[in-house]
Each structure stands twice: as structure tokens, then as C-alpha cells.
């Protein structure tokens, strides 16, 4: 049986190795400078790139972070400070519920409230859908990281005459910052590769657009579109896109893992 656990460990890590190896082999050969700087080509036309999709993905991550990070960190502060109250327990449970919500359901919800009323797909709707998915992730990691900060630090700040809000922000939050940054990066990595919530919100776009009110291209959407079509050239593009996407995601994940405490100390002012 001990042998089985070794076998399980090998089998469990095998898919990762296989997928990454295949991605690098297929993707690298299709990757060129043009991929980053050119627009998608027409059907059957060789070359072309995903410049618009790369920019689109970065924009969507930006919009999602603007929504997800402050709300998530604020809710995490609330949960850590009001732990034990019925409202905090309810919020904690519902944030787990939200975390388990299928991303496609988030997608149709965002379509219903943000696209249907204005009859227009938009980058904003896609970013909001992704931001809503970030909220529970950021909330729970923020809460966990804040609970690790010793109560004595909070007391010390209060005893110095810090108002509660300054105590929470410049002492407690500041002390837990490294962990919260890690949690935020994990959340960004997770939503960066999401496709389903974007299908009916950001929609995708074959053209250059940086307007939040217009449909926007995104790497995952582009990979999906190219993968399910029959053209070999598009398949090559899909692999290249997947390699870029996973590189972005892995860099963020690794950054999260190695996010160490930033330099202590703000200048006395």
C-alpha cells in the first residue's frame, strides 16, 4: 500500500509535466515576435498574432482587480474583526458558496444584469464578472492572514492612541500585507485564465479595442475559438496563445509563492 501512495504521487504529477511539456513543444514553435505585436489574421492566412487578446486579458484583469481587491480586502477585514458574530458567520459561509459557484453561472448572471439591459456586450461586463469571482477568494485569504496577526499588536496600537481604523490599516493590515498580496496574486492567477464568464460578456473581438464599453478580445476566448476550429494555422496559434497564457498564470503563481515580506518601515513623516 505504501507503494501505491508513491505511484499516486507519480501519476498525479504526470499530467502537469505532460501538459507543460506539450505546451512548450507546440507553443514555442508557433511563437514569434509577431504573435505579440500583430492582430489576428484572416482564415487560412498564415501569420498574425494575438496582440489584441493579450492587451484585452490585461485590461480584464485590471477591471476585475479594481472591483475584487478592495471589496475582498474590506470584507476580509470585517470578518477578521467581527469574528463570531452571526453576520460574520453568514458572510463567511456565503463567500464559500460564491467561491464554489460554477463560472458559467457567473457568466449568465453578468449577462443578465450587465449585457441584457443595455443590449451590448462589453469589456466592463466581463471584468465585473471576473471581479465578482475574485471577491470570495480575496476575502477568505485576507481574513486568514489577518487572524494570524497577534492581538497584542492591535492592543499596542490602540494603547498608543491609534483610532480603530488606523490600527486596522497601518498596523494589522500592514503586518499581514505579504500574505494578503500572495492571496491577491493567487486570485488574479485564477481569474486570468477564466473563459466561461467571458463568453457572453466580453464576447471576444477580432479587432483592436481598448474601450471598456466595447466587446474585447481575451487570450482564453481566443484560444477556445481557435482550438475548436479546423484550420491548422489556428491550432498553432491556439498553442502559442496557451503557452503565453500559462506563462502569465505561472509567473503570477510563482510570484505569489515567493512573495516575501516587502521592506519594512515607512519613512517617519
Amino acid at each position, binding site marked *: 500500500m505504501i507503494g501505491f501512495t508513491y505511484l499516486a504521487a507519480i501519476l498525479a504529477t504526470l499530467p502537469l509535466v505532460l501538459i507543460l511539456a506539450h505546451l512548450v513543444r507546440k507553443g514555442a514553435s508557433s511563437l514569434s515576435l509577431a504573435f505579440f505585436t500583430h492582430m489576428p489574421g484572416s482564415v487560412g492566412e498564415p501569420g498574425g498574432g494575438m496582440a489584441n487578446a493579450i492587451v484585452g486579458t490585461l485590461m480584464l484583469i485590471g477591471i476585475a482587480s479594481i472591483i475584487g481587491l478592495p471589496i475582498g480586502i474590506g470584507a476580509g477585514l470585517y470578518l477578521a474583526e467581527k469574528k463570531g458574530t452571526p453576520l460574520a458567520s453568514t458572510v463567511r459561509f456565503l463567500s464559500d458558496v460564491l467561491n464554489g459557484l460554477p463560472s458559467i453561472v457567473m457568466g449568465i448572471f453578468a449577462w443578465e444584469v450587465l449585457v441584457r439591459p443595455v443590449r451590448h456586450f462589453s469589456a466592463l461586463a466581463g471584468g465585473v464578472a471576473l471581479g465578482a469571482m475574485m471577491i470570495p477568494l480575496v476575502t477568505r485569504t485576507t481574513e486568514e492572514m489577518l487572524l494570524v496577526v497577534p492581538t497584542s499588536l492591535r492592543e499596542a496600537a490602540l494603547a498608543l492612541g491609534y483610532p480603530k481604523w488606523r490600527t486596522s490599516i497601518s498596523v494589522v493590515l500592514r503586518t499581514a500585507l505579504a500574505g494578503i498580496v500572495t492571496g491577491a496574486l493567487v486570485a488574479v492567477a485564477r481569474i486570468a485564465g477564466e473563459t466561461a464568464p467571458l463568453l457572453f460578456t466580453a464576447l471576444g473581438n477580432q479587432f483592436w479595442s481598448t474601450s471598456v464599453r466595447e466587446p474585447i478580445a481575451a487570450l482564453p476566448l481566443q484560444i477556445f475559438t481557435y482550438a475548436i476550429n479546423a484550420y491548422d494555422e489556428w491550432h498553432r496559434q491556439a498553442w502559442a496563445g496557451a503557452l503565453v497564457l500559462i506563462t502569465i498564470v505561472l509567473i503570477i503563481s510563482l510570484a505569489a509563492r515567493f512573495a516575501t515580506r516587502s521592506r519594512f*518601515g515607512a519613512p517617519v513623516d
Partner: protein
Amino acid sequence: MLQSTEVLREKRPMRIITPTVQVRSPEPTTSQVETRPCIVTSKLSAYFGETAAIRDISMSVPQQAVTAIIGPSGCGKSTLLRCLNRMHETVPRTRVEGSVQILGSEIYGEGTSPIAIRRHVGMVFQRPTPFPTMSIRANVAAGLRVDSKSHADRGATSEIVEEALQRAGLWAEVKDQLDESAMALSGGQQQRLCIARALATRPRVILLDEPTASLDPLNAQKVEELVYDLRKTVTVVIVTHNMQQAARVSDRTAFLLMGELVEFASTRELFTAPKDPRTESYITGRFG
């Protein structure tokens, strides 16, 4: 700031630490102490939920002297201390009854902000609590930075930082590493840093909650020396479970038992001729 600057600017030499603790017989100016109360509590009670941690405590703490609060664990001595700077109410489901006057002002008065009280009444805890993300300098200045109106410029701040570290007897040890992390200091240095941080806002009163409990004997002794010195410039209230410490550093001692003030007298009197039989049992080691 309201306090006279002459008192604060007085630069005292570092005390030379002797390996054995001399039991100093406190020589307070008793008559002066009696006439100049700093903290006056009357019928002070504090609750956790429905349970009273201290009941009906009325005492008068003398100014510019060290007052020790002793008693067995769970007797409410920390709670009493935390009522003097309104820290008790920071714990959920707690409340305070009665009154506390500091220098003639009611700190539980209507419209009085606990934040204002805490800026004038410093506190140091059992374990050192330097802010881990701040440098030594920033730690000492932490209380100043939060009160944006009380300081004018960078120069003034660095003078105050130096003065506070001098008073805490830490200046010579850290003056070359002010911008390094406070976490690099030893436990004893961290505790003196916390005392410096509390002194930087130039408080009238310093509350010490078992400040030497987590320190090794040598560092505990340094802190004790410091407490002894502080009386010259500030009123000190110290909670301790160590009776020898109370005897060494304090001018007056209060003995608490099960939330009640059993006896409050000059330290010499309390330890040599206790009036209450319960005090006598405690100081002779029969319980607690």
C-alpha cells in the same frame, strides 16, 4: 504639549547596572504624594459580559511615583490597569462602571474620546509588541505620527525619538541602527523600545502590565531600573505577579483579591505591617 520641556529635556546618564538587585527602600515624599493625587478611581467596576472582573475599586494613585498592583492571577489586576486608559472597552461585550479621574479630568466623561486618553496615558504590555513592519525609529515615532497635529516637522520628530530612547535607556544601543527593523532587537531591547514608544507622546501616566514577565533576569533587571527612574518624570502604575519586584520598584502597593481592593498602602507598610490578614497570607506566600 502641555508638559514642561525642562523636565523632559533633562538628559540623565545611563544607569550602571549592578549584577545584584538592591532592595531600595522607597523613600517617597509621602506627604506630597498624599496631597497630589494623579489618578483617582471611585467605585470602579469592570465587567466581561455579566461577570465582574473588578468591583467597587476606589483608590488614589500618587503623582510622579510608582504604584504597584499585586495579587494572585485572575484577581483583576490587569483589568484594573486597562480601565485607566480605557483599554478595557476594546474587548467586545465589556463595560465599565464608576469613575476614573486623571489629573482632575474624568476620563469616562461624556464626549471624552478614549483616543485622547490613550495619548496621555501610555501602556506597555507583558510581551514586547514592536510593530514588525516598522523600523526602530518609526516604532518610537508611531504614537506621534498618528496624532498629526502634535508635531511640526521631521527635525522635531527625530529629537523626540532620541529623547524617548534616552529615557528608555536604549539610545546608546540602537543609535546607529535606527532605520533597521525593530524585530532584530533582543526581547529585552524590544520591551525597552515599547517603553520608549509609550514615552514619545510625553504621557502623564505610564501603565505597565507585567513588563518583565517574558524577559530573562538580566533584561528584567534593566527594565526594573528604568521603571525606578521613570518616577522622576511620570506617574507609573505597574502590575506585577512578582512581589519582590513590587517591593523593589514601587512607592505604594495595592493588593487585589478576587476583583476587590484589599489593601492599598505605602509599599514599606504593606510588606512589613499589612493591616489585612489576607494581605499577610499573600505576601507570606500562603496562597496565590
